[in-house]
């Protein structure tokens, strides 16, 4: 197999995700669907379950009757899939009170879909000793409830084992991230790989990722004279969107996305109380604008732009994603202050308006010529 074949297999796993999950689920294994990358999948794995990221489809025609049109199209697209029965196979659905849209999605899901196990975690907005202690209790509650519901009490050892496995996976993804920075893998392909991590069983994903890393090793890579860009913004699970950006003279060499680097940026301490270690890991990963520390997010993106020798930053915001919208005012100022050119693209969850988007990207890239 070549690297291209392996990447294609990840892309396929994402495209046929329901089939992927059905074929990889062990007999009798419980599957839990989760939303939002603050969700601690490790707890589900420690319970012997199969955690999968819940994604949306192309349409929102069913969910529009249940969710107001002013909700972001990501949650409407996700709920549409649920209404169509595509998530009926789930044994559990869980998320956090990340944003108003996800919260209300949990409410309608619980009310109309009736997945056997549902849970919503309270995620603090600040990272302080008190908030970490509080979130640890939240994780403890999930661990207890899930253990009870599935009849598999979750031991600390099982949690530690899961943490070690996820750390391993995250280290490998960090290696791949470095390769993307060097141009060995495109930004579009990279999205498919990270998404596959959230849909395949972790052991199988790790094996395939190791193969990919070996295949990519030693390839003479460079982004050449293409403009190097960082991508940040709302949930982004469409590699074609990234390909659109990369279509002409550009390479997405880094990202600050919850479907990208936020998923693997930091590791969990493998020693001591596993729940406390998880609470710390999730609360100290690069923040999304939902978290209160605006400065930290801005400096993270600015720092990334510098370390990745980026020529510019593209911010994509799903319409009605108020957090990213309002957070963008400060981010734009921060980038401007740091002298990093920035383009903001408003979009819908599924890729529409490609023509005008392409024009704006091209204009941005042309503008970089003189920078």
């Amino acid at each position, binding site marked *: 197999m070549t690297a291209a074949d392996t990447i294609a297999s990840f892309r396929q796993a994402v495209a046929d995700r329901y089939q992927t999950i059905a074929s990889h689920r062990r007999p009798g294994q419980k599957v839990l669907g989760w939303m939002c990358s603050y969700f601690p999948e490790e707890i589900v794995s420690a319970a012997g379950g199969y955690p999968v990221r819940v994604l949306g489809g192309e349409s929102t025609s069913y969910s529009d009757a249940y969710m*107001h049109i002013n*909700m972001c199209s990501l949650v409407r697209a996700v709920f549409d899939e649920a209404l169509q029965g595509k998530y009926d196979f789930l044994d559990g659905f869980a998320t956090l009170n990340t944003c108003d849209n996800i919260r209300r999605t949990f409410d309608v899901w619980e009310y109309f879909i009736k997945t056997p196990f549902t849970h919503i975690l309270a995620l603090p907005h600040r990272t*302080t000793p*008190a908030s970490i202690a509080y979130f640890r209790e939240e994780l403890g509650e999930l661990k207890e409830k899930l253990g009870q519901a599935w009849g598999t009490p979750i031991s600390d050892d099982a949690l530690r084992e899961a943490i070690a496995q996820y750390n391993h996976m995250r280290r490998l993804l960090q290696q791949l991230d470095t390769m993307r920075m060097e141009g060995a893998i495109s930004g579009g392909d990279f999205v498919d790989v990270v998404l596959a991590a959230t849909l395949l069983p972790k052991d199988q994903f790790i094996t395939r990722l190791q193969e990919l890393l070996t295949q990519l090793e030693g390839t003479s890579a460079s982004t050449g004279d293409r403009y190097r860009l960082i991508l940040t913004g709302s949930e982004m699970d469409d590699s074609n969107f990234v390909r659109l950006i990369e279509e002409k003279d550009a390479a997405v060499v880094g990202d600050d996305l919850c479907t990208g680097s936020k998923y693997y940026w930091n590791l969990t301490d493998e020693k001591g109380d596993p729940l406390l270690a998880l609470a710390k890991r999730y609360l100290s990963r690069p923040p999304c604008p939902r978290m*209160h520390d*605006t400065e930290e997010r801005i400096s993270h993106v600015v720092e990334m732009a510098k370390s990745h020798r980026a020529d510019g930053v593209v911010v994509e915001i799903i319409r009605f994603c108020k957090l990213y919208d309002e957070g963008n*005012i*400060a981010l734009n100022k921060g980038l401007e202050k740091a002298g990093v050119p920035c383009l903001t693209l408003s979009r819908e969850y599924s890729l529409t308006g490609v023509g005008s988007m392409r024009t704006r990207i091209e204009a941005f890239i042309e503008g970089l010529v003189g920078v």
Partner: protein
Amino acid sequence: MAVSQNAAIEEHQAIAERMTGTLDRLKSRGGRGSEVHFWEGMRNYYQRATDAAKAGRSVLCSGMFVPHELFEAMDIPYYIAENHGVMTFQSDIEGGIALFDTAERAGMAADICSPHRAATGLALSGRTLQPKAVVHTTTTCDQTIKLYEVLADIHKVPNFLIDTPYGARPNDMAYAEENVKELIAFLEQQFNTKMDPARLRKALEISHEAYSYWEKICELRQAVPCPTGGREAVKDTTILLVAAGRQESVDYFKARYQELKDKVDKKEGIIPDEKYRLAWLYVLPFFDLKMADWLQDTYGAVIVLDTFGINNPEITLDPEDPIGFLAKKPLKRRFTYWSFAPSKEASAVDDLAQMCRDFKADAAVLLSHWSCQQWCGLTQMLRDKITKDVGIPFLTVNGDLLDPRVVSSEDMRSNLGEFFTSVMGA
């Protein structure tokens, strides 16, 4: 002092003077006791912040559902940016729309909650007092959190977020209390002052008394006929914000309670012939509060329940436990509680449905405020629950709290009118 600060002070002084004028007119006409106390509370609130700014003292910019009693106890004059935005808009709708444009030019999306765009427009135009710091809470929504971060950025001052958690269980509240302790330390540092426990205790006792009256008033709204309407209830919630921990709030509620109690005892409603009892499951459009009067006059429909103006009995405030009191305060209203924390340990729709029963509502209306994902997100569940379990009609009215360009007052009224004639048989 910067020119813009002078302009802001002048504008605030003019508002306080207008309120004094209203007060004088009311007094000379022998207006109701509660109304007089309301305007006293409002005027004093504006005057305090204005006087402080004039004297070069530091003022605080605060969120709506923050425990303002603490500021009272620490002698920190404050203003609530969202309220100021709403009030400015109400007094000048054309000018208010220009504020939206100012906010949008600075990068704020047109979909952002209109009171927030108004508050941002005011801050950007130098029409709000320059604060020393900003304090806000996670209640009620994402947009509220971000608004105050934006305002802190505009004013270039630090901000403190009270991270009110998603629930009111003991561990949630323990975390909220930690936040309150940090807030006190933050304020002590920013305002170079010390929190006086005796003064706090006094403010909380006053606040507790005001809340006790408010709770009784909420119960009186269950009476048939209902002694008060939706427009009047807006004053209850406003005074709780602007005179928290101050005697004006007790004076207002005491008088109002007596006025309503007398009516209930005499079986008098706010209108002579109450035909329909409406559960208004949101806030009245601020740009047209008279819509409540119009419903009364045209259809005999009285808003007996609105989520903004109803207390949350789940949350008890105890002055004996000052930190606990301050920590729980952001969840004391039904509106904040259900905007913010529905599914963790209870259900918003179950509670709202039960309220419809308790208040003997004949119909429920949800104003679908264009920017509000919290409440719009409940629409389908509420419709399902209320029509099936409570068995009363449910109407969604599209609109906006402040921006008449989203749906005009005429269109909202015609939507309501059609509902009354075709569904309620008016």
